[in-house]
């Protein structure tokens, strides 16, 4: 077939069609103005907003970022202007760029999530919702809200019932049993899952005997994460084969993206790579076309979960 017929569009179901399977991850898409001069947003599969909370957050004290081998340790403490200012000022600008906007929401209680989705319900600019579930649970006094099967089901269920657009649950990388969490999220009504993302991390400056970040602990991002993400995507795709998975963490090149699709993802998000090369989501999408051509395949869908694992993998070991 000719390259012209080869499409990069991915249909994630429930009316969510992306022009390419390459999106910008939460926290790296700016507030609507920053990226437009550096990349043609119409050629980007989607923009995930920074995580928005009910009230404005000042965020963590600086320094907020440090470089690590092939990665970064960072935290922003979810600095954001709160849902109302976001809806007035940021969302319209983000949508104007031409890429579908996926709004990431974060809350510390069921009520906060419900009020957030309530405020977003009527906005036509929202293509999908991503649930940030790695924050603390203020209500139940737990460190990680989304690390518990029952709680994840409860939050996802409440948001999914109210949402008019598909809901993706971004499961915390620190959780011990991602496949079980994924099943609970899908059972509760999540349309899909965002798998990967930054694990909790610490940076230390030996010269000053101090932590590298003002908030002490943070998260790790960057190319170094790829194998962690691949494994998580692989495991979750086997647990919930019907749900679309968006892989995030460690995608820098087209090859990385293809690997994520082979492991079971339907689309990928890029974060740190966009901070280094703002046009990289477009270049990675082009590179996926090149790979499809070389393999004689038609669409990114043909790559999904095509990783050739040995027969019998995953069955109990006899030895």
């Amino acid at each position, binding site marked *: 077939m000719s390259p012209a017929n080869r499409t990069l569009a991915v249909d994630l179901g429930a009316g969510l069609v992306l022009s390419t399977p390459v999106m910008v991850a939460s*926290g*790296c*898409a*700016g*507030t609507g*103005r*920053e*990226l437009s*001069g*550096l990349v043609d947003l119409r050629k980007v599969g989607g923009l995930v907003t*920074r995580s928005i909370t009910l009230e404005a957050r*000042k*965020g*963590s*004290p*600086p*320094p*907020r*970022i*440090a*470089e690590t*081998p*092939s*990665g*970064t340790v*960072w935290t*922003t*403490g979810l*600095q954001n202007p709160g849902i109302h200012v976001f809806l007035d000022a940021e969302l319209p600008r983000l949508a104007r760029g031409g890429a579908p906007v996926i709004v990431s929401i974060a809350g510390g209680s069921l009520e906060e999530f419900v009020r957030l989705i309530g405020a977003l319900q009527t906005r036509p600019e929202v293509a999908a919702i991503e649930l940030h579930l790695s924050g603390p649970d203020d209500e139940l006094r737990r460190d990680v809200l989304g690390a518990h099967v029952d709680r994840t089901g409860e939050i996802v269920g409440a948001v999914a019932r109210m949402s008019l657009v598909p809901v993706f649950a971004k499961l915390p990388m620190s959780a011990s049993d991602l496949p079980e969490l994924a099943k609970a999220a899908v059972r509760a009504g999540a349309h899909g899952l965002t798998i990967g993302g930054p694990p909790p991390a610490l940076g230390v400056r030996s010269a000053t005997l101090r932590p590298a970040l*003002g908030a002490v602990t943070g998260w790790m991002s*960057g*190319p170094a994460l790829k194998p962690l993400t691949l494994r998580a995507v692989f495991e979750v795709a086997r647990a919930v084969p019907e749900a679309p998975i968006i892989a995030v963490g460690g995608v820098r090149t087209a090859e990385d993206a293809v690997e994520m699709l082979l492991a079971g993802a339907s689309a990928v998000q890029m974060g*740190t790579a*966009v*901070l*280094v*090369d*703002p*046009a990289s989501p477009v270049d990675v999408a082009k590179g996926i076309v090149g790979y499809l051509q070389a393999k004689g395949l038609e669409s990114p869908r043909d790559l999904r979960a095509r990783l050739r694992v040995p027969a019998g993998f995953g069955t109990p070991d006899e030895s």
Partner: protein
Amino acid sequence: MKRVRAEVLSTRKLGAYHQLTVVAPEIAEKARPGQFVAVQMPVGREFLLRRHLAIHDASRRGGWAGTLEFVIDPAGPGTSWLASTRAHSFLDLIGPLGKGFSHPRRLSNCLLVAERHGAATLYFLAQELVAAGKRVDMVVGAETLERVLKPIDAKRLSQTVAIVTADGTLGDRGGVMDVLAEAAERSKAQVVYAAGPARTLERIAAFCKERGLPAQMALEERMGCGYGLCQTCVVPVARKDGSGYDNLRTCMDGPVFNPARVLWDRWLGERPTMLPTPPEGLPVVRAWPG
């Protein structure tokens, strides 16, 4: 703001620093003192974030038209790599980035205080101020002779210069704070500009506050991207109307700030906290002298 592939024209050693000259007409045309560029690092190395370099000079006319100059302190892997780049290699630059220094409209006497390679951005500013008919005086400080950037340029650009080194290898022995009061009086300073390490800037800010001197400072905080995406390079800055403060990005909202609005204790203090209103209250800030 443009993203360009810029050819390296030359690199040369300059004491402890390296000077890098690149051809980037699209950026040079627009560049203002205080602004910076974000340089991409080589792919496939373990250091990956862009490095952020203050613009030291931008030539718009003559034989060097369309060139940009930077001063690099090769302190880490990225800056060392930059210092080792060869002529005719290419760098991926995004710039000019950030908000630069503004000139005082009516006032004339400008005192520029630089520590270490903070001088790079201030020499560029000095050229503009002199061209605009302002009086420029300077205080330039560093640990040692090797780290005093181009002392001859400092002399050429200003009426008087006080050079200080911690070890006394050039100028007086001491730091910029030791000579600041005298320099301010001698030059009858009306406006202060400063660039250098944050701790020094904090002390210069206190000096300016005490004397009621309006000031602008180029601040540095660890950056992820440099073009506004990642919200990491923030400093706490009081709102103009006194209704609170915000963590502002040094890349987009700065790097030049009015130091009277910077909440230095919250930024550099031992126990940084992010309460909505600081217990010490918010500073009252006079407008920049128009």
